[in-house]
């Protein structure tokens, strides 16, 4: 149904220890709903900086509508 679990596990592994800048490339992602956002947000909360790159227009609108544009482009 969705790859949200795999994305969650991957991000958990990457940011598990917290720390450095995180870049998430969403070029291949066509659609994202609130569960995907929850995973990105959980990862974002643990790292110093996060940058979401290449979101599709749909994904970008989901991020904008949820008021997360700044949250997901946060420098250290």
């Amino acid at each position, binding site marked *: 149904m969705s790859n949200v679990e795999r994305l969650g596990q991957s991000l958990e592994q990457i940011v598990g220890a917290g720390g450095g800048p995180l870049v998430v490339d969403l070029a291949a992602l066509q659609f994202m709903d609130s569960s995907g956002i929850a995973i990105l947000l959980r990862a974002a*909360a643990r790292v110093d900086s996060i940058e979401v790159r290449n979101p599709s227009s749909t994904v970008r609108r989901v991020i904008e509508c949820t008021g997360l544009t700044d949250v997901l482009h946060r420098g250290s």
Partner: protein
Amino acid sequence: MVEIDVARDGVGADGTKSAGSSLRSDGTSEDEGKRPTGPHRASIVVLAVGVAVTAVLAFTAATLHDSNENRLLHQRVSEAAAVLSAAIPNLQTPLSSGAVLAEATHADRGALTSLMKPLTAGRPFVSVSVWPAHAPDPRPLMVVGSDPELANRPEPDVRTFLSQATTKKVVSVLDLLGASPRRLGYAFSVGSSARYVVYAEAALPQNRRSNVDSNVAFSDLDYAIYLGSTEDAGRLLAASVVDPRFRGRTARDDVPFGDQTLRIVMTPRRELGGSLLARLPWLIGGLGTAIALAAALMTERLVRRRADAERLALQNARLFSEQRSVAQTLQHCLLPEERPEFPGLDLAVRYVPGVDGVDVGGDWYDVIGIDGSRVMIIVGDVSGRGLRAATAMASLRYAMRAYVAQGDAPDEVLFKLGKLINIVRDGHFATVLCGLVDVVEHKVTFANAGHPNPLLIDRDGATFVNTKVGPPVGIEAASYDVVTVAVPPRGTLLAYTDGLYERRGESPDVGLARLRGAAVGNGSLDELLDGMLGVLTPAGCDDDTAILAVRWLT
């Protein structure tokens, strides 16, 4: 929210104990005692059937082997009897020649000696003699070879034996097995007119072991040959073993031997049909039992596994329904379905559970009166599903009621709410739209934490209110901007959660446009909401959906 918040389960480090696991530990205890300890009936049946089939097969193989062995042995005994029969003319022919010669020459010593001499070298005879057929005092007229044992016999016996020899067409056999060395006597004459009887004696091996068995055709058999048709040890002529009282499988045959018979008894030294056939019943028995055991074990494992799975499924179903019903009860308590009321306003609410979702969502609405002309309207959505989402929703809902009661403005309410929930700690965040309605002034002041914009419906149609969308609560400390909009007389505001318009794989803009297009009609608020739900989600909502509608009565 379409998805279960999967990542929540991955964040074990947050230390929160889920309601699900506590239910599980309560729920399983009564099932512990039901676990069966002995083997299941199915396994026993499989074992029994397997062993029974094995037994029948092994018995059949054994029976086949037995009858095969018997058949082969009888065949061999017949062959041996034929060999013996073929040897008898070797005795009778020289005696018959001697009898004819004796009659013709009146027992001429010279002629008979030259005929008999070659026959008395041990094989076949040790002694050949010629006797008068009907003499009152029978003595041998001539002897070639050693002295005949017959001469040591009582006179009447000798007389009877000799006269009987003239009445028979075959060789008369005399039992001299009691003598030492053991001998057999053979007498023959030309018939009832005979004046002479030719008599010969053959020596038998003293130990009764015969070297006739050197015939390789019978090397796999033990045999014994008796004179007469009884198996009397005293009448044993020859045997392949010292003690010829055979046990086990034996076969016998009688062969005419002069005026007597020979009894041949045989027993196999080993399996005549080969050792494989002999081992077959044991092979079948062993292999079949092993297969039956393995099948029974396999059955037992499968039955147990299935029983385990069934029990687990039952447990899970019960736990799930318990959990679900707890969450549903909680949500029903939190979201009373009766219509909220406030002077000067028409209010309507809807809560539609998702058809796909197995858990309840964290959507909610609230209407909190502040004074006679002001009311706070709230629509929110906690990320994730299930009991934890519903619980988080409850805490946010009551916290907001407290902040509103304190007189906090919408932006302050959201700011304070952000300190209550934390995505890392709780696994949830929430989008919340908070609007302060001034009924008399016909205006609403909105603060928005990541929530879809409300829809304003008036005579000219529907437009989205452009609130300033801040981040959802629970992400990071954030301040929120307020936007105040004027509402025309009899205008309607519609706040909702994303289940109403969000469709998988579709841009939110498409869904929002569809929503705006559906917000038409001059009917009552209920007609408006039911009409929109009918158009937007004809097959039910994918996700849980909460809707709050406010219409000015003036």
